[in-house]
């Protein structure tokens, strides 16, 4: 079934006329229909519009090969519900925007449309991108397709689950402290966070403006390279977007990795991590060494302060960014005796508890008397963290770490203690603080139950080519990218239950 294909496989088959955009889109919609009652990856699915876009793609394909810039022609893609698409909901997983319809496209959405992609729907997320488990969505909780009692990761959990479950070909998410890479790791797919400023944030609802980046959730590294190539680029509408030319990420993938230097930071080999995770990552690094990379021991001395620095900086920036949700121009409005009461009641009713926690923490960190002790100090620690990385990158081309210290934990397991949830981001946060790039690629599974483990490769600023190349070499030398969750296996859309019992034999491609 075409929903099981990657971007490169699907576009190849479309070019040969072996399948159609409509078939691919219908297959994704069928998969959503079949699985989403259990997975809950989607908040909104636009069936009629997506099929109409598919038909238009088919008409274009009938005229001849897709133009060079339409690398996604006929490919169904999902968007995390924090990325604006004109005429579509933009809830950010929050009640405060439950009825909000976006009047404009994000730059990345425009780029996807121009590349011929089909926009399938809106993926579930932690409210305002605040969370690591997608349990903070105001609407539904997404489940991990590998084990429905476990989290898919967060905050881009819906997008990651949708890709892992073959409900779409690929998806865009956002990453402020790991929210693309960590769910990718937990769902067994590829997730890349570009360097800060590589991809435009215009149309991305802001959580922490100096940390946010839009990232790609894909079935393999080649797809990540393709999708990154589409969305990357300078944008005058985002004043933090950096005018650096976009290289040919796909063309550079298969280049030799011999002699590339990979750093292992001793601070990242921690006791608190799951031993199977540590083992899988160590084995992955050995594989890279066999493929010709040199392994170099490095130190990132300020690693231990990353979580603390992040939760001051991100929450401080969030408290400013979320001030716009005041019930006046858009969003939920609850009347009050005066404007202040209107703001308080609207925000009190519209925001969930994690969002409120972070706004309160951020407000405190910025408040008079505490600004120097918290926010300013955290920003100085941030400088030290960035320096650690830049120094390390003088000796290495990439740094290898586990993406997450544990595989997917059970739903509800970390809800009581926010701090425990925060600490689970230890390996991904520094990347956003330092403004560098990072990719997570599958590197194995835990034994019982079978849950995905992710290897993270961190790269220098605008060093996406290097980490893509290393990730590709590793992926092609291992079987992980061919494995899919049993749930995703295609079955005929039928009520013949004996067929369902038979299951399916082997990977479906």
């Amino acid at each position, binding site marked *: 079934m075409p929903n099981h294909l990657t971007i490169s496989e699907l576009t190849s088959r479309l070019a040969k006329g072996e399948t159609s955009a409509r078939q691919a889109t219908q297959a994704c919609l069928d998969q959503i229909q079949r699985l989403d009652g259990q997975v809950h990856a989607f908040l909104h699915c636009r069936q009629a519009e997506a099929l109409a876009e598919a038909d238009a793609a088919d008409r274009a394909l009938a005229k001849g090969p897709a133009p060079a810039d339409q690398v996604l022609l006929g490919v169904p893609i999902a968007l995390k519900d924090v990325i604006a698409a004109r005429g579509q909901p933009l809830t950010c997983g929050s009640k405060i925007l439950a009825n909000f319809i976006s009047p404009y496209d994000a730059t990345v959405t425009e780029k996807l449309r121009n590349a011929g992609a089909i926009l399938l729907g809106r993926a579930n997320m932690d409210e305002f991108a605040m969370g690591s488990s997608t349990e903070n969505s105001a609407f539904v909780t997404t489940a991990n397709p590998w084990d429905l009692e476990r989290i898919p990761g967060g905050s881009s959990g819906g997008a990651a689950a949708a890709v892992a479950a073959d409900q779409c070909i690929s998806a865009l998410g956002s990453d402020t402290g790991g929210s693309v890479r960590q769910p990718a790791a937990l769902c067994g797919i590829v997730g890349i966070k570009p360097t800060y400023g590589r991809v435009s944030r215009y149309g991305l609802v802001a959580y922490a403006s100096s940390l946010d980046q839009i990232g790609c959730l894909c079935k393999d590294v080649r797809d990540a390279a393709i999708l990154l190539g589409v969305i990357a680029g300078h944008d005058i509408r985002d004043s933090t977007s950096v005018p650096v030319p976009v290289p040919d990420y796909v063309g550079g993938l298969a280049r030799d990795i011999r002699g590339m230097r990979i750093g292992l930071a001793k601070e990242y080999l921690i006791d608190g991590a799951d031993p199977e995770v540590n083992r899988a990552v160590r084995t992955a690094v050995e594989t890279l060494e066999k493929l010709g990379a040199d392994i170099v021991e490095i130190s990132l001395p300020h690693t231990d302060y990353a979580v603390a620095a992040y939760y001051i900086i991100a929450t401080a920036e969030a408290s400013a960014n979320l001030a716009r949700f005041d019930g006046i121009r858009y969003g939920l409005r609850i009347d009050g005796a005066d404007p202040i009461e209107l703001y308080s009641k609207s925000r009190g009713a519209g925001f969930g508890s994690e969002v409120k926690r972070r*706004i309160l923490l951020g407000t405190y960190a910025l408040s008079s008397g505490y600004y120097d002790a918290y926010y300013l*100090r955290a920003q100085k620690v941030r400088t030290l963290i960035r320096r650690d990385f830049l120094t390390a990158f003088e000796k290495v081309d990439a740094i290898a770490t586990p993406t997450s210290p544990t595989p997917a934990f059970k739903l509800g397991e970390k809800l009581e203690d926010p701090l425990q949830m925060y600490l689970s981001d230890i390996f991904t946060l520094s990347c956003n603080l330092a403004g560098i790039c990072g990719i997570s690629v599958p590197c194995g599974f835990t034994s019982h139950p079978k849950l995905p483990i992710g290897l993270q490769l961190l790269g220098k600023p605008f060093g996406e080519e290097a980490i893509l190349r290393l990730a590709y070499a590793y992926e092609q030398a291992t079987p992980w990218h061919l494995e899919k969750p049993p749930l995703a296996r295609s079955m005929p859309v039928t009520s013949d239950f004996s067929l369902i019992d038979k299951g399916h034999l082997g990977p479906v491609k």
Partner: protein
Amino acid sequence: MSAPSFDIHYIAHLARLSLTPEEERQAAAQLGHVLDYIEKLKEVDVTGVEPTAHPFPLTNVVRGDAVSPSLATQEALRNAPSEENGLILVPKIVE
């Protein structure tokens, strides 16, 4: 050891967030816990270190002073809670 005077009620007012007494109690406890953890930032020697506001500092990012198409009024108003004659209705601010 809890962070010095984390007055949840005052902070909630600054943030224009209405909290139930139960929410206040829970938030105060949870955030007190988080703030205790964040105290470790005080261990770091930050003498002479400049703060990083942005990972890739760009300066004077401006565009030319030229009129270009923007969002149409009706589009901008489509999500307004209360609207009339192309204006968003808001509660009275000044008596």
